[in-house]
């Protein structure tokens, strides 16, 4: 398969801030690539460089073999794109906005505009002025705009922002359909790991301007060990006991009266034995596959969608417990 997007040692800094530090990745034709990273990782900067809105300070960014800055006109014929917080002309209707952008690509195809409005579920509101649209409706219109001119590559920056659960579900189905039925290449940036996990063939994880990992999802998620959720009668004491088990890492669970344990080897029996021996009631011990979320946290050190922004304090030192 040929590469539609080629990013090679791309760097970008804003003043003293290094937004991108020699990142390299590519997107193969027909694949759905997830672009992951916490806020400030450099995702949007990368996408802006690909769209020809910024130019890199070093390295190259190409789409369809054309440099995104010096040969932008040719590169831009390959893709349609939506950026975070899409902007439209509020005084025009959704349909008129699409007409405006369609004219930039050539003669306006009214049939295609009607079909696109239908595709994104905006048929009924297409003739309303955009200033009356909700954020979710703007996102849908942005997707329709990106699909104008039948591009080979779709670049989506946080396309689920502002969408309700139904909208997110609908978007997922639509993107999967576009990828499978039309062979569209999709470059998809999102914070919603579940979306990326369900949609993408491959992911690139970006953190502080550097690529931390890239590859097929299956590979990324299989090499990272074991994870357990244990429902216990005394969380504090259980944490103390489990942390003493060789190779185990424990933290309070998100579910009440539970702890999460990770380890490189299967230590389920050891942990269960230690807890029971310490007199802690174990209601259940669930072994789960490593999810993308775990990989993401391990690579970036940033909790996903943490309701509290304050960092988790380090665990207090625990005296080792000799195994019996």
């Amino acid at each position, binding site marked *: 398969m040929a590469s539609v997007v080629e990013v090679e040692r791309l760097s970008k800094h804003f003043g003293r801030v290094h937004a991108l530090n020699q990142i390299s990745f590519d997107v193969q034709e027909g694949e759905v690539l997830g672009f992951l990273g916490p806020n400030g990782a450099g995702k*949007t900067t990368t996408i802006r460089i690909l769209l020809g809105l910024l130019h890199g300070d070093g390295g190259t960014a190409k789409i369809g073999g054309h440099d995104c800055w010096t040969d932008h006109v040719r590169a*831009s*014929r390959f893709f349609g794109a939506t950026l975070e917080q899409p*902007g*439209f*002309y509020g005084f*025009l209707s959704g349909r008129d906005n699409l007409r405006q952008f369609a*004219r*930039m690509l*050539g003669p306006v195809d009214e049939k295609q505009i009607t079909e696109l409005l239908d595709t994104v579920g905006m048929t009924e509101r297409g003739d309303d002025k955009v200033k009356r649209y909700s954020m979710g409706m703007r996102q849908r219109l942005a997707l329709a705009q990106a699909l104008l001119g039948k591009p080979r590559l779709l670049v989506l920056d946080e396309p689920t922002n502002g969408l309700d659960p139904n909208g997110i579900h609908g978007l997922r189905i639509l993107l999967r359909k576009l990828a499978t039925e039309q062979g569209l290449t999709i470059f998809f940036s999102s914070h919603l790991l579940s979306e990326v996990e369900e949609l993408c063939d491959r992911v690139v994880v970006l953190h502080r301007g550097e690529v931390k990992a890239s590859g097929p999802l299956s590979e990324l998620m299989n090499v990272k060990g074991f994870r357990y959720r244990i429902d216990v009668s005394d969380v504090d004491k259980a944490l103390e006991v489990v942390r003493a088990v060789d190779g185990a890492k424990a933290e309070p669970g998100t579910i009440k009266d539970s702890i999460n344990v990770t380890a490189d080897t299967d230590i389920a029996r050891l942990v269960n034995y230690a807890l029971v021996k310490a007199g802690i009631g174990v209601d259940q011990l669930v072994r789960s596959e490593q999810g993308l979320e775990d990989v993401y946290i391990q690579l970036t050190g940033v909790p996903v969608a943490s309701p509290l922004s304050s960092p988790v304090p380090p665990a207090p030192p625990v005296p080792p417990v000799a195994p019996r």
Partner: protein
Amino acid sequence: MSILASLIRNEFEKTWRSRWIVFAVLFGLFLLIAVGLYAYFVYREHRWTPPPSVAWQAQLRDEIASNQQTIVNLEQVKQQAQGQGGTVRVGGRNGPGLSIDDAIAQTQQAIADDQYLIDHNIAPVQSFAVAQASLFALGGIVMFLLTRIFGWLASEQIAGERSDRTITILLSRPPSRNQVLFAKAFASFLISLVVVLLALVIIYAMFAFFLGSPGSLTDQAAVAMDGAKPLGPGNLLQMPIYLFVFMCIGAAMLGVLCVQGMSLLISVVTGRWAAIGITLALLFGAPLVSTVVAGILFLISGSLGSAHFLNYLFFNVLAPVGSVAPAFGNSTAAAGSGINEFTFELETLAVWTFGFFLAAWLLFRRKQEAG
């Protein structure tokens, strides 16, 4: 080419759909000016209908008679002032005032000029309805207002897209930045041309009414090369009146283009409200400051010419038509009058306009949109 035409069409649609109320207000303003002129006509002429047409020679003779009466009045004022041991200054069109002797000399010069034109059968440019309309519509308060409005609209061209976040789509699509910028500048210019022509037509209709005839469009008309010197063979430019009108339209549109270039340059580097604020502050504030400076220089030197260098600043020469003939309170800083001053102002404007567009183009093609 088709993409460029599409971009221009987009600009027309966006401007009309977002700013139609501005154009409606402008049209209402033109009608208001027409009604105001008509009310003034009725008040002055004591009639509702057009007067009988008067030949330009008769107009000049009336003007000579009127000027002779003015001299008599000025002489009387001078004698009274001398009797009281004081001095009197009279208000001048282009400066803080003239001594009474200078005013008398100026009026005598006007009589001599009129007589020269009658003697040589040369029609003055002001004797044509269309020329008067051109001087009024393209050289005075109307253009002052229009250039500010066009400046405001142009200042939103790129800055508005940035504030609306539509610039990301605009610049990520196939049209090049050069095409985007050209389409915006061209559309702005065409829209302003239509508005200016509409203003000219409405005001021409009014002047034709006041003079009792639309007047000739093909006769020869004369303009002084240097309005401060006596008219004569070396100080008179003759041309068909339609050419004079085209010249005025061209000059007025160069002023508009200069403002649009400046606004576009500001628009390239700022957001919407900053661009509008800076543009309007420059267009309204700078001439005001310049007028104050011109006044101070006159007080120090006693000469109107001492502040003429201020006309190298673009905001003082945005309506160069006013310098062809000093009519209707043209406010150019310490301007002279006549074709020589007109040419100087056009050259000044051309340099500024080229500079503004060049700077806007250079900045826009390298401008990074970091969001």
